[in-house]
């Protein structure tokens, strides 16, 4: 039972030990040693408040992104061109819900409250990935999201499987296994369209043109403007910088685009033999800032949908709670009638 995660105990434990200053220092040293030896921090271990707070924010933001991320593609489930594509898209969107729940579960091991996290999202006090504030205009977008957005998610998440916080790393392992299906179904969808009519090929190219830059922005602002990177890397809850991950994504995607027969919309994009990487243009960071600040094409729509889903589900949660209470009362009544056991 060593990895059972019970919330709040960690805080009690910490308070108990931190009463004396030397106790606190000893705990900090133990924590630092665990991280530097590349071992995992587990929920009931002592950890600095900053580590706990930063992780809760990071994991919650990640969870919210998975949940909001269901919307752009979910819109196309009823309009999928075949039963096969519909079943695949259904499974994909359901996986994203699952990813959100794995991550909320990990956040709870740090003492966060799930209902509170939902509230923070709905009230706009916590953010989610900028990419989901762009619209899906036709079914080619579903393919390009799988290829680019899930591809970018893989670049981000694979290193996090080794993050210092155990429950987060384990959630990432589970998620990464599922992301591979997401990326491949998207690419296969696009290959199918590219074998179709000229109009279909144009749809794919159009979707690529619209999603390329927002996908590069998914990795966050450039390292020169990224404020939390140093501390987060020391804590091993971030393992590569935004620019490193962005570069990795570009290098990974270029040959895939060639095989597919589409053009990535960047005239500066070319292989640099000296660096051993592709050079590419600088994304429009002012656009990223606008979208993060709430002024993207779909921010209001995504938030309204999430809020409505939560409010429309209230009666279900109430009914389930009432049913559980009634069953529990019924069981208690039966036990009383049977009298004391033995």
């Amino acid at each position, binding site marked *: *039972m*060593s*990895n*059972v*995660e*019970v*919330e709040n*105990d960690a805080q009690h*434990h910490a308070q108990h030990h931190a009463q004396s200053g030397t106790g606190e220092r000893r705990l900090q040293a*133990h924590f630092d040693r665990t991280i530097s030896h590349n071992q995992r921090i*587990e929920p*009931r*271990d*002592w950890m600095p408040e900053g580590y706990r707070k930063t992780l809760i924010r990071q994991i919650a933001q990640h969870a919210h992104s998975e949940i909001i991320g269901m919307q752009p593609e979910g819109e196309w489930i009823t309009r999928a061109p075949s039963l096969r594509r519909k079943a695949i898209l259904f*499974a994909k969107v*359901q*996986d994203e819900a*699952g990813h959100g*729940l*794995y991550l909320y*579960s*990990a956040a*709870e*091991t740090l003492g966060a*409250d*799930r*209902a509170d996290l*939902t*509230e923070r999202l709905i009230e706009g006090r916590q953010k989610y990935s900028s990419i989901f504030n762009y619209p899906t205009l036709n079914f080619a977008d579903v393919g390009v999201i799988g290829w680019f957005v899930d591809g970018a998610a893989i670049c981000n998440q694979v290193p996090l499987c080794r993050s210092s916080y155990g*429950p987060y790393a*384990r*959630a990432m392992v*589970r998620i990464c296994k*599922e992301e591979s299906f997401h990326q491949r179904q998207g690419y296969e969808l696009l290959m199918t369209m590219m074998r179709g009519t000229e109009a279909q090929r144009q749809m794919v190219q159009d979707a690529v043109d619209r999603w390329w830059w927002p996908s590069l922005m998914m990795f966050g602002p450039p390292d020169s403007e990224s404020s939390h990177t140093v501390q987060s890397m020391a804590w091993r809850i971030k393992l590569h910088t935004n620019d490193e991950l962005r570069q990795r994504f570009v290098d990974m995607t270029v040959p895939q685009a060639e095989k597919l027969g589409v053009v990535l919309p960047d005239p500066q994009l070319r292989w640099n033999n000296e660096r051993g990487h592709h050079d590419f243009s600088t994304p429009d960071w002012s656009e990223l800032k606008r979208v993060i600040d709430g002024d993207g094409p779909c921010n209001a729509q995504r938030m309204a949908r999430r809020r409505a889903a*939560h*409010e429309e589900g*209230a009666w279900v*949660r*109430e009914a*389930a*709670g009432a*049913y*559980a209470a009634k*069953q*529990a009362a019924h069981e208690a009544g039966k036990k009383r009638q049977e009298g004391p056991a033995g």
Partner: protein
Amino acid sequence: MTRDRRKWPLYEVFIRGKRGLNHVHVGSLHAADDRMALTHARDLYTRRNEGVSIWVVRSDAITASTPDEKDPFFAPSGDKVYRHPTFYDIPEDVPHI
């Protein structure tokens, strides 16, 4: 607005991946009662045949040891090297031991 949900307790989920293996902890979820916890666990943690059996248990029903590796709780096994087979020197030429 969310008060109703706060009453749904937290459950820990354990899955037996296949016959012959132990149940292993995979994560947690909220549910109104035990049965809902079980169906939610199925939907959340076994979408790709990851399990043949599921346990759910309310998190508040679990008693756990403290995590510190220097905790005296694990001391009783720390100094009993004679519980391990490598403690015993047996001549090389004794077979099958």
